[in-house]
């Protein structure tokens, strides 16, 4: 069984990304959406933590949310950008979707 984890909060304001990283398994996929996409940006106080998680987890970010916030050129290398269709695909490819609200 695999889980798609979604995180929709900024990691600078809210603990949900941290909790998701703590309570998720190697091999799982994390999709950053809404204000959660700030967690996918380079050079921040948490980007090293995100990069470390990428060693055994797949981290994606929702492209429309990235573009809305003007962060397109700041995304950490290796984070995959997906659109809403890609979000749907991730939800079908995994067995369960867990929202870290």
């Amino acid at each position, binding site marked *: *069984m*695999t*889980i798609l984890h979604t995180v929709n909060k900024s990691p600078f304001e809210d*603990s*949900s990304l941290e*909790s998701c990283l*703590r*309570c*998720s*398994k190697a091999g799982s996929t994390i999709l950053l959406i809404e204000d959660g996409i700030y967690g996918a940006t380079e050079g921040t106080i948490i980007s090293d933590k995100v990069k470390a998680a990428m060693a055994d987890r797949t981290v994606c970010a929702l492209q429309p949310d990235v573009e809305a916030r003007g962060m397109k050129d700041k995304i950490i290398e290796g984070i995959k950008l997906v659109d809403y269709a890609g979000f749907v695909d991730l939800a079908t490819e995994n*067995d*369960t*979707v*867990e*929202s*870290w*609200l």
Partner: protein
Amino acid sequence: MSDTTKKFLYLNRKAPYGTIYALESLEVVLIGAAFEQDVALAFVDDGVYQITKGQDTAGIGVKNFSPTYSALGDYDVNKIYVEKESLEARGLTVDDLLDLKYEDEDDDWAEKDSIRVVTAQELADIMDEQDVILSF
């Protein structure tokens, strides 16, 4: 529906009273109990505060719903996971939590603890087995 039994996990991560999520999540659990699914609750992050002892809401004028958690055992809701790391970060131990019990029908109705303290990675394994995760 009788042929389908799914594993439902209710993931509770928010403190009570500051927002309504804890109360309305509990209302879902109570309704959901009638559907005879395989139900578990997880309390993570500030969610652990939902089941602390000694809540007294008279001063804020809001109903204290914490006694309802003690009734969950009667609804066959008896798998209550509390994340160890969340408790520790908040200076809490299991003694600070409500004493939630159930009677085990497979063990001559012996009274047992519903609460199981698990590490984050144990909880990750438990989440991995679920069919439906409802987060509030």
